[in-house]
């Protein structure tokens, strides 16, 4: 069986769903970052696959951009996370409710 575009897209969808569930269900901030990474990379898979399918490099370039942005986002996010942990001793999401309106 040859692996075609559909397979990649199905994989991307599954990964996206897993990421989405992770974003909704996880209470640990660190694992939330993992879930966002899964989301972003599921999209990357779709970008690369479609780019290859059309023979157009734009999609793959976009995937690189996403990777770069994701890396910087995680760097900033982890920095904030460490500061938060030092202050409060917990990275549980339910303890982060100072934004309550």
């Amino acid at each position, binding site marked *: 069986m040859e692996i075609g575009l559909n397979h990649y897209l199905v994989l991307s969808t599954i990964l996206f769903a897993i990421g*989405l569930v992770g*974003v*909704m269900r*996880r*209470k640990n901030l660190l694992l*939330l970052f993992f879930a966002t990474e899964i989301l972003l990379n599921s999209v990357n898979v779709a970008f690369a696959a479609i780019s290859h399918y059309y023979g157009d490099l734009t999609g793959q370039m976009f995937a690189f951009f996403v990777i770069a942005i994701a890396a910087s986002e995680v760097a900033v996010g982890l920095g904030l996370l460490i500061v938060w942990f030092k202050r409060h001793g917990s990275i549980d*999401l*339910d303890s*982060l*409710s*100072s*934004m*309550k*309106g």
Partner: protein
Amino acid sequence: MEKYLYIALFAPLVSSLFSALFTATPKKMFTGIVASLLIFSSLVSSFVLLMYILDGGEPVHVEMMTWMATGHLYIPFGFIVDQVSVTMMMVVTLVSTIVHIYSIGYMDHDKGFNRFFSWLSAFVFSMMVLVMSDNYAGLFIGWEGVGLCSWGLIGFWFHKEVATWAANEAFIMNRIADLGMLIGIFLVYWNTGTLQYDGAFAAFSTLDTATLTWIGIFLFIGAMGKSAQFPLHTWLADAMEGPTPVSALIHAATMVTAGVYLVVRSGELYDLIPNVGLFIASLGAFVALFAASMALVNRDMKRIIAYSTLSQLGYMFAAAGLGAYWVALFHLMAHAFFKALLFLGAGNVMHAMHDELDPFKMGGLKKVMRWTWIMMTIASLALAGIFPFAGFFSKDTILEAAFAEHHFVIYGVLLFTAGLTAFYSFRLVALIFHGEERYKIFGIHPHEAYRFMLIAMSPLLILAMIAGVFQVPFFEMVEEILNAHEYHIHSHTTLLIMLVGTQVFVALAILYAYKKYASWSSVPDGTSAIENSFVYKLLYNQYYIPYFYEEYIVKSYKEMSEVFWTKVDMKIVDATVDGIAGIIYGTGEKTRDMQSGNLSTMLKWMVAGLVGLLSLAVVFGLAARYSDEILSILSALGV
């Protein structure tokens, strides 16, 4: 010449805006002086234009800019100075210059000195727009402008409840009439396709009589409001709550004559519909008598003069309605001079008497106020139409016109009214200036007005005396434009008898007034027989018309408004608006729990929103792709 036109028109506007800068500051003498100078420059420009027109110059017609141009509607800001408007411009600027200078003295101690000049100059500007416009739309703008300024000036002392009430009454009554006028203007546009005077008049001859009659009636309704003709007359007497210079300028000399101006201006229309003209003349004659009768017994100096204005406006309408437009315009001019003089004299008396208005509480003032006495006597003689003063020439021509046109009833009414006019004018003069000094009981120490006020009034005094000499030049000037002709009574004997008879009749009325009132010694207290007679009460209460309006129109209107307020406004309109607000507020109240501050919950909502938007995108995408099929299914279902 255009330069003079623009100066005449815009100098009052500059004056008004300049004075308006200082309305919030204490009295500044220079606002009065600057305003007077600017109005005077307007007078000089008008005079230059008058000389130019008298020399036989072509009417000056300018189109300053386009005002409205949509589709077939084209209305420019156009101004015309022809024989009719230049007459009005002279009257307006002359009287307003004098009133401006006089007001510097009259409003001397008033806190609103600067504000007063701002309003007064704004009035002059509006009046100039009214008389100089070359189309009905511009005339209407000026018409509304003078109405607004009249409101502001009647209610100038707004801390007095009567003043604000009178201001509102004048404004609302004029609004009612203006609706009629607006309909008239719409009809003109609808039927002729233009609002320019020349274009509209040229098109009138092609219209059928019924349409013209409606146009004539509706335009005249506007004139009735502005010129306070019956039944919209009650505001004029109440308008006397304003400062006296305002009464002299607005409610005697200029604004109230705007209705006459409108009829004269639309003369070519009224020539085509003599029936409406006859109605106007009859109403005019009726108002002349009606107003004069109310002036007979009134005990308020300014109201007496106001009724006399009303009565003279009736004369003007009688003349205009009979097609004697030039006579109406001439009487308008002569009346402006002596009536403004009379009002300004009354202002002097009011100042001297500390705002006392009841002539029965005055008496013997000629000793202390010699010049005011002379001025008011001459103004009254002119008003009564005694030879050789201004009123003789204008009023007698009206009588002659009525006689020559064979409207003997109108002639009779006007002649009788001339006697009444003479009587009430000299009743006032006799009560104020002659007889015992009754004011001493009230502890008042009267004094003559400032010298410069008297000097300011002197041009009016001279004009009230000599305005008759302008009759022939005036006739020659407007002859062509107003299609004027002299009124000849064929038999010289008849003419002589009429002239002498009128003079004798008027003179007898004056003598009777002097005999009855010149030696008056007591202040009436409502107990004498005459004060309790039915006629006296009827006249004193103005035929109970204000009472009737109050009782049957104002009250029922108020009740109706109450019902609409509680039932319609509160229950339907307000309820709808409040309901919408309530729904939005309630939704907000319910959904604010979403904003829990918990990151995990917010992420879930975010995902929910994403899913929602995605599903919408899918639904619309599918609907767009299969739109043809969906439509065919729907049409099959009969939707």
